[in-house]
């Protein structure tokens, strides 16, 4: 997994390339996703002529900020070999709860921490079911998904407008990021911060390395004396906190909370993470890859709206891309296990 960086440059270029691929095999799917993203950008630019504009690229990040945050959390869980189906519903629930608390006049400084805590609690509940009661992650997070969706409707059956200036500020402020019409909102900055923190956590902390170890082989990780129980629980908590944060961002994005928000988002998130090169069996993948996956997803949506085609094509294309990437992953795994 860790692999020594390629420092020796004795062999020919092809040899170095081969060595790079054999040592860094887990980066191949990420690079493939990046290649697809670049090809899509170039193709769309050639076709439309006005695709690669600062405005389109900027809004690509802003429209998918919540998905990016969810995907980072999901990456942690999938790396341990689990799955979290509850993220979309938790996002809706925390959004609803936050909006109703704000309506009741609570200050935003209280509401946002409450939303994050609720997300963490939902994640912890899933983790406890998975870790202590041997419930499969699929079923445990399914129960959390049902619970969160029901709770969201319990808060209110109709949508709640958010008028809190601090929340709306997150989305309405347009910061000029570079000359031209490059802009970024606080939600976009939040999402990028989450990506950076997630990537650093996974790459440079004991917690992150333990997650890779668990995904690689849980039994071995336990025998090595790694804190498997704590780390797995934490992975689900990370995903829950990300879902809570996504609730904040999505509420800011839409300016209102609706209990039906985020239906199917868990699937979009999983698809983005898989397209970004994370193996569903766990142990291999990167937060950066998930970010590319989200950008691929967002670009497909943008291209389809540029084409003026029906949005149902988005889902079909995502399904097809997902298939392509899973087959690529399958081939990579088969080749590395043969070695």
């Amino acid at each position: 997994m860790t692999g020594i960086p390629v420092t020796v440059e004795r062999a020919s270029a092809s040899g170095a390339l081969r060595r790079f691929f054999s040592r860094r095999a887990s980066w191949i799917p990420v690079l493939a996703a990046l290649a697809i993203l670049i090809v899509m950008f170039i193709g769309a630019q050639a076709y439309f002529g006005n695709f690669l504009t600062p405005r389109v690229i900027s809004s690509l990040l802003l429209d998918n900020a919540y998905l990016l945050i969810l995907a980072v959390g999901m990456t942690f869980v999938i790396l341990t070999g689990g799955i979290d189906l509850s993220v979309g519903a938790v996002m809706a629930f925390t959004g609803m709860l936050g909006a109703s608390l704000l309506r009741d006049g609570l200050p935003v400084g209280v509401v946002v921490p409450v939303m994050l805590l609720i997300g963490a609690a939902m994640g912890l509940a899933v983790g406890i079911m998975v870790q202590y009661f041997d419930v499969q992650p699929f079923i445990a997070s399914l129960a959390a998904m049902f619970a969160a969706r029901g709770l969201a409707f319990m808060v209110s059956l109709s949508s709640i407008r958010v008028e809190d200036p601090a929340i709306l500020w997150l989305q309405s402020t347009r910061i000029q990021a570079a000359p031209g019409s490059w802009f970024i909102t606080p939600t976009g900055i939040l999402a990028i911060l989450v990506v950076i923190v997630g990537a650093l956590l996974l790459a440079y902390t004991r917690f992150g390395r333990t997650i890779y170890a668990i995904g690689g082989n849980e039994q071995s990780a336990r025998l090595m004396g790694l804190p498997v129980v704590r780390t797995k629980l934490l992975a689900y908590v990370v995903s829950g906190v990300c879902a809570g944060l996504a609730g904040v961002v999505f509420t800011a994005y839409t300016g209102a909370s609706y209990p039906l928000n985020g239906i199917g988002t868990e699937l979009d998130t999983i698809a983005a993470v898989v397209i970004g090169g994370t193996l569903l069996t766990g142990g291999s993948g990167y937060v950066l890859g998930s970010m590319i996956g989200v950008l691929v997803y967002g670009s497909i949506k943008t291209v389809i709206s540029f084409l003026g085609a029906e949005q149902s094509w988005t889902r079909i294309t995502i399904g097809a891309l997902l298939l392509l990437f899973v087959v690529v992953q399958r081939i990579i795994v088969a080749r590395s296990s043969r070695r």
Partner: protein
Amino acid sequence: MKRILKNRLFWPVLALVALIVINTIARPSFISITVQGGQLYGPLIDILRNSAPLMLVALGMTIVIATRGIDLSVGAVMAVSGAVALTIIEGSSDPNGLGTVLVAIVVGVLVALVLGVWNGFLVAVVGIQPIIATLVLMLAGRGIALLITGGFITTINSEPYKFMAQGYVLGLPFALYVSMAAVVVVALLERRTALGVLTEAVGINPEASRLAGVRSRGIIWGAYAASGLLAGLAGILYSSNIMAADANAAGLYIELDAILAVVLGGTSLMGGKFSLAGTVVGVFTIQTLKSTITFLGVPPAVSPLFLAIVVVIVVLVQSPRLRSVLARASQALRPRNSSPQGGSEVAS
């Protein structure tokens, strides 16, 4: 008594009976069945009728889960088959003709079968994890259904098609006959032939059963094909019930309900041994629970919360750790008995 307690069906049946008893106490009219014009009416009959699509889907899901797989695409397949059937009827010159309706149903179910075969191909031949292989179609399927209906909700008027879900035969809903026929056919195929045992073998250890000469590839493939076929039939029933093909709402979350029904019925998600009778009981339990929730005046939207509570209780009861803790607790409570006979009784 002990044999009854140890039966795998004991807890599922107990849950169902408890639900029915609670309902009957809360509203005595719950178990009343009235006869109107030779047709039976009543809450119980409604439950039997409304459970038909879930029953079909859950049957297929049981077989897939027995092979250590899962089929997430059933809801999307339902949407596709309903969209295909209704588009054919809508486009025909004679929407009330029996021939048109039969063609529509057959084509709709065949398309669903093709989708099931596709899932099976991805899992059995390409070797993709079942969750992801079927996730592909779950994502793409609704898009395909939307394309078929042109993005609209296709509505039709066709008496023979309406009969599928809303008609009565010999006093009972026709949909009930469809679902029961499916139960009987699947049970005969799985339990009166070697297929069931082979399916369990594949689910318990795919590699060992392959070495033992079981054609695991074909069996897994067949399981997904069957699941697709049954989901297609469920899609026909669903669209016939509302006489519309709603690509977004048809079969939404039914895959989760079906998985829940299978788990409630005592089939482990780890594959292997499965119980068709358990699934049937599980489906009725879920349908009764839903009707209870509606009766309690809870908005249907909140009903997932109750489902979640049920799921948590069921999986916790099934959890080995909780069981061993409970067993130890009950053993500690009993007076110590040193005689071997007494010991053997406690051990069970």
